[in-house]
């Protein structure tokens, strides 16, 4: 049995009432963990921006791989090695299709978004960035799209610039022309802010960057599992994302690199898998993407990611986006009804998350309190320390959603927050 067959057993087809109508409640049954309890209460999992839960189809794909196909890839001449290699490369193809890449060669498997961005900063940046060059970022970047560039700037003498964030949580695009000068070699920005929920106009930003000759890197960690996305429509040069925020396993992610620049980038990590021949003094390397994948890769992870992609595509990302946006808007409205509560980010279009602070309680106290009622929230700076400073807070509480969450759960969250407000004030 092929690994895809294992995934098919879950039969997501049954959860569609009609062609375009998804039975969202029934989808919850695909996620065994949603039956868990926390402190004697049914689990309400609102920490999806940190990591999503995994459907049975993905768990089974992992199990199937280890039970029927496990071997190392690319080198072995035996049956299992062929199966593993075929499944691994098929997964790469599936990822390419999923984001609209031209070819599977444009997909480098990594451990996740962070490693993808570090690869660009170190391998591409190491070769092409010189003293005086500028890397343009935004004030809303996750530390993973900030620290790698700080390290590069320290090493090369390049400078960093930042597009400011307005009070409503959107980018101050009026400042862009002054920032986006010919010294800018790369413009890196997030697609959806992980603490504000802002959806950035990726297409427009890429176009403007290209007009001054800069390349673009999109951090798609919060978007790739939540909305339809096509790298050609976006027009980006690099796109980084993680599998575990889109129903896939942890420890696997990908970097998309546009074909035209793919081969100009030198290898990053050295080791097995990425070489053609090795002598004591010098080696020659495989072509991309293999030259970026030194050592035994996360084979099972890649296969699990492909299973997650199959699962999401069965539901349809347009439907997921619509569903999750409704949840986020509903949560935004309900939170705004609470007294002495400040809700961050844009009111209208937003990703599937809401960040807020309540005068009555610190985010950590709120999160500890909510957990006792089975509600998983996240309190803290969300790897966005500069952004938190920008908004004058040390941290926020964040509720982040996925398609298996419901408005009933949001109502329950509001009740719990009201209890917390009474308790702490």
């Amino acid at each position, binding site marked *: 049995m092929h690994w895809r067959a294992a995934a098919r057993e879950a039969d997501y087809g049954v959860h569609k009432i009609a062609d375009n109508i998804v039975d969202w409640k029934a989808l919850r049954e695909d996620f065994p963990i949603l039956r868990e309890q926390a402190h004697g209460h049914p689990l309400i999992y609102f920490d999806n921006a940190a990591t999503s839960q995994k459907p049975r189809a993905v768990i089974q794909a992992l199990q199937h791989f280890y039970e029927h196909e496990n071997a190392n890839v690319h080198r072995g001449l035996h049956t299992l090695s062929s199966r593993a290699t075929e499944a691994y490369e098929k997964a790469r193809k599936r990822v390419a299709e999923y984001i609209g890449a031209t070819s599977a060669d444009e997909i480098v498997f990594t451990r996740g978004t962070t490693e993808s961005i570090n690869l660009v900063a170190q391998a591409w940046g190491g070769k092409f960035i010189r003293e005086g060059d500028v890397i343009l970022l935004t004030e809303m970047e996750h530390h993973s799209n900030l620290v790698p560039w700080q390290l590069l700037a320290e090493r090369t003498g390049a400078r960093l610039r930042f597009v400011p964030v307005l009070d409503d949580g959107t980018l101050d695009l009026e400042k862009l022309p002054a920032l986006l000068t010919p010294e800018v070699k790369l413009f890196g920005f997030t697609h959806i802010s992980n603490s504000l929920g802002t959806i950035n106009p990726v297409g427009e930003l890429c176009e403007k960057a290209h007009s001054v000759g800069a390349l673009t890197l999109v951090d798609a960690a919060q978007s790739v599992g939540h909305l339809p996305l096509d790298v050609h429509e976006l027009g980006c040069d690099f796109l980084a994302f993680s599998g575990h925020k889109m129903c896939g396993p942890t420890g696997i992610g990908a970097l998309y690199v546009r074909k035209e620049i793919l081969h100009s980038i030198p290898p990053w990590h050295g080791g097995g898998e990425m070489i053609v021949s090795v002598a004591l003094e010098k080696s020659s390397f495989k072509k991309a993407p293999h030259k970026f994948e030194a050592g035994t890769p996360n084979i099972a992870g890649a296969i699990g990611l492909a299973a997650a992609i199959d699962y999401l595509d069965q539901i349809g990302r347009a439907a997921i986006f619509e569903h999750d946006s409704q949840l986020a808007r509903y949560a935004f409205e309900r939170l705004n009804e609470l007294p002495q509560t400040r809700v961050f980010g844009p009111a209208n279009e937003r990703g599937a998350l809401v960040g807020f602070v309540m005068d009555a309680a610190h985010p*950590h106290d709120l999160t500890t309190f909510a957990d006792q009622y089975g509600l998983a929230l996240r309190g*803290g700076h969300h790897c966005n*320390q500069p952004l938190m400073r920008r908004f004058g807070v*040390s941290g926020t509480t964040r509720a982040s959603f996925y398609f298996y969450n419901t408005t009933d759960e949001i109502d329950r969250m509001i009740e719990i927050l009201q209890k917390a407000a009474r*308790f702490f004030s």
Partner: protein
Amino acid sequence: MIPEIDELYQEVILDHSRRPRNFGELPDAGVRVHGDNPACGDEIHLAVKFDAGGGLEEIKFTGRGCAISQASASLMTMKLKGKSRPEAMDMLRAFRDLVTNDAGEAPKTLGDLRVMKGVRNFPQRVKCAMLPWRAVEQAFEQRAGEATVSTEPE
């Protein structure tokens, strides 16, 4: 209500977090220690004045943080005023045991600090409770000038 929550956030703790004692500036402080909890962005600025014998004559703090770190700082400053270094370090060890050790009985010498016992059920919150204590430990170490401590080793 939920017993663990009631034990963690006892009325005394909520009271100290809402109205922290010894909160404010200490212009003639001999040593100032800034304590950071990078995990959540909380910070405490501790100002200490030592007496001639090296004892803790005056102690105040500012900063912002969760109820646990604020109450811990407030209760700590009340408890440590007038204490010698060995006394304060004994207190620190007893307090650390109180918030981390399941089995240990809280020594009576801790007095009011014993209300922090509920923290032991919440391992993620131990750092919040310990932050002011790490700062005061550094203040004794330092004796003069300024320093920074963090809940995360660098």
